[in-house]
């Protein structure tokens, strides 16, 4: 009786034109509480000192010789350089692998996205193991050719740039490869038919059509470079915005850290808006189907050998960081000093991980905190994606931007925002101070990675035909019934793929964690960093291999989900 009455009332609520606000209001509240208001708190902290309002923390940005200005310029410079190197590597790989046939192509193609499987922190340490002045490759060359000193060593800004190129070229590769694969071959044939030469076809037809992919890749790479913290940390480059923020925070100067964070936020959000604007413009899509893209075959014997050698080198470069991590994970802690390769091997590193409760604790922490954050991300991401796809309401574009802001914000900035907002009691933390407690990290992971769930759910929903839901409604289903039985099952794959990514990223998170972790919630990546500082390379690498396995499982599962996506 009561249930029936409630049912009836719920039905009337869902039928009301104001029902959208029943969904949108909590969303707006959550985004305000954990995204927007912390940003404002950071801004407020940056314009206040003991005596009240001040702009002194921003003064440094207007002085060309100041540390802040230098850091800002270096950050922008390294980001521009990263865009250029990533574009060159990513696009040439996309063209080579999609338009040419040569020996070794399949091998190279199967490994081309390996950088995405590299865990964020330990993956960069792998570069140190390989290419730093004490790394395997320079030492091996020195030994081989009996040189007086190592021939090269990866360090400083060059090191950052190389790591950025390695980890970020996939942004260009994936978008360019997708664009190349989507080309209508008849456009090219038409150009040849009209008398164009090969280079004219490339410069007049193919490259202009690649422009959207290139712009999207550039914006993304620029944004991720601006946010990069781990690479500068490991290669010891201080004069970078994220590093300056972390240093100011470590020195206890929250106001300065806030000012720097605010400047970085403004740049990141500007890029986010630029990206959204650009994505809404027309992209080039092929219209006709049938003929598949033609690959040019490399035929000359010299070309074949050259291609084979080049693919072999490429394959090596791609696979070495993974191999070296696996190798080091079996090395005995503290034994690898001046040798080319670690001298002593053991299984102890793995045994300890699973038997010592002290060694297992960071893993447990990371899994638990990431799981909590993922659950919350699913709730937010699904509700936001649904509301933005299906309803019209006031403030829709604001909500759209607010959901994606955390994705654009550097992890360092997210950490500063949370400190600024929640180092005092707040209604959004049930009146408690969460900075310095277990809950600060799940909260940070939730803020950072909920956009992943949102994006992937949004993509499935956007493909889904809204009339399917209308069909359910006209057949007599209530809003809630059709959401449960029709809409949710159809978007489930998207939700799951996004949730997996969010979970994996949470388990690997370092950038925000390192600024706000406590002894009680220390995550894997912070533990890895501490181990590296105490030269326990073996144990650190073992943790890294574990992270890598988790990432591979997640990638495998989401690829399977995508392949089976024959509906929706």
């Amino acid at each position, binding site marked *: 009786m009561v249930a029936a009455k409630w049912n009836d009332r719920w039905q009337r609520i869902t039928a009301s034109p104001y029902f959208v606000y029943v969904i949108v209001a909590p969303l707006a509240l959550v985004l305000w509480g954990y995204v927007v208001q912390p940003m404002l708190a950071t801004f407020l902290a940056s314009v206040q000192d003991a005596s009240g309002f001040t702009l002194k923390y921003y003064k440094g940005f207007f002085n060309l010789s100041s540390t802040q200005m230098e850091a800002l310029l270096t950050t922008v410079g390294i980001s521009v350089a990263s865009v250029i190197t990533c574009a060159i590597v990513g696009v040439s790989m996309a063209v080579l692998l999609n338009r040419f046939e040569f020996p070794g192509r399949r091998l190279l193609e199967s490994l081309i996205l390996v950088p995405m499987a590299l865990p964020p922190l330990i993956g960069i340490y792998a570069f140190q193991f390989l290419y730093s002045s004490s790394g395997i490759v320079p030492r091996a060359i020195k030994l081989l050719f009996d040189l007086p000193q190592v021939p090269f060593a990866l360090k400083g800004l060059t090191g950052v740039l190389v790591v950025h190129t390695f980890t970020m070229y996939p942004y260009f590769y994936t978008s360019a490869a997708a664009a190349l694969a989507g080309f209508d071959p008849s456009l090219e044939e038409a150009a040849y038919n009209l008398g164009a030469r090969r280079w004219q076809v490339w410069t007049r037809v193919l490259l202009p059509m690649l422009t959207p992919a290139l712009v999207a890749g550039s914006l993304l790479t620029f944004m991720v470079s601006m946010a990069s913290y781990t690479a500068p940390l490991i290669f010891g480059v201080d004069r970078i915005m994220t590093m300056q923020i972390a240093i100011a925070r470590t020195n206890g100067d929250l106001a300065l850290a806030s000012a720097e964070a605010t400047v970085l936020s403004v740049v990141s959000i500007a890029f986010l808006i630029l990206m959204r604007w650009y994505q809404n413009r027309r992209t080039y899509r092929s219209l006709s189907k049938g003929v598949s893209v033609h690959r040019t075959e490399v035929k000359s014997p010299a070309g074949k050998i050259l291609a084979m050698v080049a693919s072999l080198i490429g394959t090596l470069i791609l696979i070495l960081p993974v191999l070296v991590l696996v190798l080091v994970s079996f090395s005995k802690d503290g034994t690898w000093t001046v040798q080319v390769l670690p001298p002593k091997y053991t299984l102890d590193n793995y045994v300890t991980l699973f038997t010592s409760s002290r060694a297992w604790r960071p893993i447990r922490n990371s899994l638990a905190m990431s799981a909590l954050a993922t659950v919350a991300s699913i709730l937010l991401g699904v509700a936001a994606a649904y509301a933005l796809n299906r309803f019209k309401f006031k403030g829709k574009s604001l909500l759209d931007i607010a959901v994606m802001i955390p994705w654009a914000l550097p992890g360092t900035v997210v950490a500063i925002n949370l400190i600024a907002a929640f180092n005092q009691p707040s209604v959004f933390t049930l009146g408690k101070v969460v900075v310095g407690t277990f809950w600060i990290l799940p909260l940070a992971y939730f803020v950072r990675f909920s956009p992943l769930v949102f994006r992937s759910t949004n993509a499935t929903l956007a493909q889904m035909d809204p009339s399917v839901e209308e069909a359910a409604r006209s057949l*007599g289903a209530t809003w809630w019934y059709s959401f449960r039985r029709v809409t949710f099952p159809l978007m489930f794959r998207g939700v799951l793929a996004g949730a997996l990514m969010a979970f994996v990223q949470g388990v690997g998170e370092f950038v925000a964690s390192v600024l706000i972790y406590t002894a009680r919630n220390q995550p894997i990546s912070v533990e890895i960093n501490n181990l590296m500082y105490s030269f326990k390379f073996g144990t650190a690498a073992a943790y890294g291999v574990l992270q890598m396995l988790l990432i591979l499982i997640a990638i495998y599962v989401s690829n399977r989900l995508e392949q089976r996506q024959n509906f929706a």
Partner: protein
Amino acid sequence: MGGLRMSDQQTSAQSVTLEHVSKSFGNGAPTVRDVNLTIQGGEFFTLLGPSGCGKTTTLRMIAGFYYPTTGRILFGDRDVTYMPPNDRNIGMVFQNYALFPHMTVFENVAFGLRVRKVPRDEMKRRVSEALKLVRLEGMEHRRIDQLSGGQQQRVALARALVIRPALLLLDEPLSNLDAKLRDETRTEIRRIQTESSITAVYVTHDQAEAMAISDRIAVMEGGVVHQVGTPQEIYHRPATRFVATFIGKSNLLEGKLTEVDGAAGLVELAGTGHIRVDLGRRNPQVPTAVGSRVVLTVRPEGIQVLAQPDGPNVLTGRVVAAEFTGAYTEYLVQAGETTFVASSADRYGEVRRPGDPIHLHIPPERVYLVE
């Protein structure tokens, strides 16, 4: 034939009334303006018009997916203007079918019954009856992506009918089918509608389809209903220039009424000549005062091609182009300052070539004065 007979119906065929219905989105111009329609129970009623004319918006208001900005919608005498779609007991067939891709054929058809908590046995019986009605027996356990377009279409129809709706709505259901299948399915839809004696509202932009399938048609353009009538009325007595040109081919002749004698009138086509008309054959809105500007319509097949210029209402011109189609020859004729299209039944190879003189007889009983 099993399926949904009258005796099986929970509700007898439903009539639908739209009173002064308008709909605007945002602050823009109204998509639908002051539509008044009465659809009889058991009738096959079509909303016909070019894209953007407001026909789909009107249908979606009947379905409850949009609520009118002003006006009322009645089912019988029940006001349903703001009733949520799931309470309306309507079967709807969507343009792209909107089948649930994660369910089998059976599950799709059973969906509406499951929502209504119909007992398991009855559900099975009714689903198989519905599938039999659309000739899809034995396909229960197919996945949706294993069906052809025509089969998907019929699943959508079965899903809409199995709930014994008071009203069946069809939103361009044939537009995704190829030409041959379209004709077959059209006949099939009409058969099923007649057999289950259900009221159907059908939306299409294809005038031939509308003429073939409908009891009555409402022709819409720019959010306004131009004319409601049987296919014959709409074809032979089009109310407006739009209706005359949208439904089939039509000659539109602008002229001035120079003489009026009871029901007989004389219209001067400037630079071409005079035509006698029957003022009884006009849209009542057209003025009949001497000197009024009027527009005449006459179908190409209404114009007779004569060998000799004898009798009244004969105009002489020259053939501009001739197209032989088999059953008839269609002539483009320049007579004075007017261009006519006239089609003449083929008489054993009698052909006029471009440049030849031609005499056109325009019988008053084939002329209609439009607004």
